[in-house]
């Protein structure tokens, strides 16, 4: 009665190469979707305006969004573990105003810049320790970080502080040109952060542990991975990135301002999610987050090209976010069904 002719379900199709690729990179799909949207945006805007895809415009995209890119990289680390960091906007404002203040009192940039990076790291460490050792929800712990950093920013100064320091302004004013293309040192910093972030996430044990925690924290623990240290570290990394974003933003605007970056943490989260990172953790790419930032930045640019109200950026980004979360949910549901 029992026969052994139970055929394995034939899902390997005609194209083994594609099958292998999908088997290995199924989680890349949302990122590809983001890339498709980015291309669509560019092509559509080019057709509509005629002069959208230009060296100047695309160079400006990196320049204008360098700080957001840096924040998004740090945020990717945190979200892939399944956490969230709401503090980054405030930390960016705090480190930015602190930097401007220190430079204003004559402290050299070589001292001031490391100081603010350490400042960002300390706030990140605080959040990480709260999350890991006091079992506080990442949302709440980083909300505390948000208030703390914002308060500290106001303590440093209630009003804008202009930066006169030449080395800092150099970061922004220098334009390395190739034809009409240009890049500023702030842009280079942002791209470096992306490259380092991507390498660490993909090719180090620390990076793979981040994914492992997002996949299943208890399994990662059972496998003997250092869950506690990794979870604290991602918040420290996000804090350092926020500090770096503070530096870049201060250079970009030429001043520190304690009200900078209100709500920017949400922009960063939106960019990360649009870039294909799963909010529940375990899947996502730093390069995807970069695409997410560019999608976000392009929408802003398109809106200003149209001369429309910038509140439309929010509405469009909001709709995109909704769409992406639904798409992700569908992909996850599908992969769960297959098991």
């Amino acid at each position, binding site marked *: 009665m*029992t026969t052994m002719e139970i055929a394995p379900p034939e899902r390997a199709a005609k194209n083994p190469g594609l099958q292998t690729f999908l088997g290995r990179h199924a989680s890349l799909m949302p990122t590809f979707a983001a890339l498709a949207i980015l291309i669509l945006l560019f092509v559509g805007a080019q057709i509509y305006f005629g002069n959208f895809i230009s060296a100047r415009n695309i160079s400006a995209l990196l320049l204008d969004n360098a700080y957001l890119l840096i924040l998004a990289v740090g945020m990717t680390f945190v979200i892939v573990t399944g956490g969230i960091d709401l503090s980054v906007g405030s930390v960016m404002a705090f480190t930015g105003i602190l930097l401007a203040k220190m430079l204003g009192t004559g402290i050299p940039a070589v001292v001031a810049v490391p100081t603010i990076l350490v400042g960002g790291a300390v706030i990140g460490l605080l959040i990480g320790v709260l999350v890991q050792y006091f079992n506080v929800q990442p949302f709440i712990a980083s909300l505390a970080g948000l208030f703390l950093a914002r308060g500290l920013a106001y303590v440093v100064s209630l009003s804008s502080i202009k930066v006169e320091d030449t080395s800092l302004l150099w970061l922004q004013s220098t334009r390395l040109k190739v034809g009409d293309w240009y890049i500023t040192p702030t842009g280079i910093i942002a791209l470096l952060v992306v490259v380092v972030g991507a390498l660490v996430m993909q090719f180090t*044990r620390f990076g793979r542990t981040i994914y492992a925690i997002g996949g299943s924290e208890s399994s990662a623990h059972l*496998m*003997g991975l250092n869950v506690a240290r990794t979870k604290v570290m991602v918040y420290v990394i996000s804090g350092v990135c926020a500090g770096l974003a503070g530096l870049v933003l201060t250079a970009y605007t030429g001043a520190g301002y304690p009200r900078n970056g209100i709500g920017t943490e949400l922009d960063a989260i939106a960019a990360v999610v649009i870039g294909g990172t799963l909010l529940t953790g*375990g899947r996502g790419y730093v390069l995807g987050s970069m695409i997410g930032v560019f999608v976000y930045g392009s929408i802003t640019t398109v809106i200003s090209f149209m001369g429309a109200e910038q509140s439309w950026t929010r509405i469009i980004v909001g709709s995109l976010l909704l769409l992406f979360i639904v798409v992700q949910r569908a992909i996850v549901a599908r992969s769960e069904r297959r098991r």
Partner: protein
Amino acid sequence: MPGQGFTGHNGRMDQAPPLLELAGATVRFGADAALDNVDFRMLPGEVHSLIGENGAGKSTLIKAITGALPLDAGVLTLEGEVRHFASPHDAQLAGISTVYQEIELLPNLSVAENIYLGREPRRFGGVDARAMRRDARAVLSELGLDIDPASILGTHALAVQQLVAIARAISTEVKVLVLDEPTSSLDLDEVAELFRVIRELKQRGVAILFVSHFLDQVYEICDRLTVLRDGKLVGEFRTDELLRIDLVHKMLGHEAAEIRGRQREPAAQADVQALVSARGVTVGTGIVDADVDLVEGEVLGVAGLLGSGRTELARAIGGIDQLQAGVIRIEQKDRHLGSPAQAMSIGIVYSSENRRTEGIVSELSVQENITLALQAQKGFFRRIKPARQRELAASWVEALGIRPPDLDRRAGTLSGGNQQKLMLARLLALAPRLLVLDEPTRGIDVGAKADIQNLVGELADNGLSVMFISAELEEVLRVGDRVAILRDGRVVETRSSADVTVDSVLALVARPDESESEGEA
């Protein structure tokens, strides 16, 4: 090297020194001992099984071996050395690897990473992905598994994931391999493949703990087995010397208590109409093509081993799980039971075997627990007046003898038996017509057990139909007017309790020893 030249079946096993030994192992949760002074040993190169019903202490013992739970008393010895494992990882480093029933892997990472993460090959300070894939391919082919090591684990079938978990376990220096229900998601071919791997590991001198509720498989692969009941050791046996029926006997225990049986008039049943008649009930592979009939005022006992489909049947009839095939007729009308609430609205209520997680709300008071379902059924805008609530709760506490009779006490602080009564009170407050009770007497004291058994009888005498599931056969026969016997997801027989004995039911539950040769191709 222990285990060299040692052969599983005809060697003199008892003379080889044990590879792993537990002496006087005790693990307590609060006042209850989940494991009570148990001795356990595993020899090199043997396949050993751990047998017992739910709550017998199997998983506690596994956790004690694998470092997931500390021993409150007793000693663990590995290769003659006393060891204390602080964590599963600690135990793994010492050579004890575990493959858990709920596969503890990372579905979002590649197969290769799932095998090597935590001890991956390094190159330039990073992970050497190429070497890792190469090594993974080698380990996987040992298991006869031809999959792309770079593919994402979650894209594979559960059976493949299970084999990957085993690949991870055997890619280390494994001395003791614990397989907790490894075959529950495998089909026949895959089980055969797994057994081939197990035999190979055995040849290498690895001691394998094979925990499964599939007795066929236990008999096929295991050399010896240890039986636990209620956290205590029943005994250690050689598989080839223990008849299956004796094993089931030892698993379920045999209370010498006299079987009272409810006194009922069989003639009375003829003219009572059928309340429930279910045909061809199928939910996944848990319960297949089951027929169940219940008349008004009847208690149907359900007997079967763990994994026989007894809970699946209860959940299907109780409207918790959706049927994939079959119909449920209530008073000759086809009824689709889409949700527990819908089932309740036609008078079917279900009480889960998991008292704490699916039963009482431990943070709420006794009174709130009792009125919860009734209030939900009435709708939250038609509030039951506080005085009425109190009166209602007090009458149920009185009727069921819930102790202490304190309406404001937090339900979580009650004993197991009283929590069970509390669940019953909540359901009875709905004035149901069919009560589905899944292991209502599990883990509660003898007095409360008797109370619940008597209560079920009284309720039935008053016209309520009851489906009564228990792992204890005596109890099923004592309480049930008829008994449905389940095995491997099917209803094997339904008989009047008067016509059967514990031994004849045991034989049906265990499956006769002769019919084992099928399934070999």
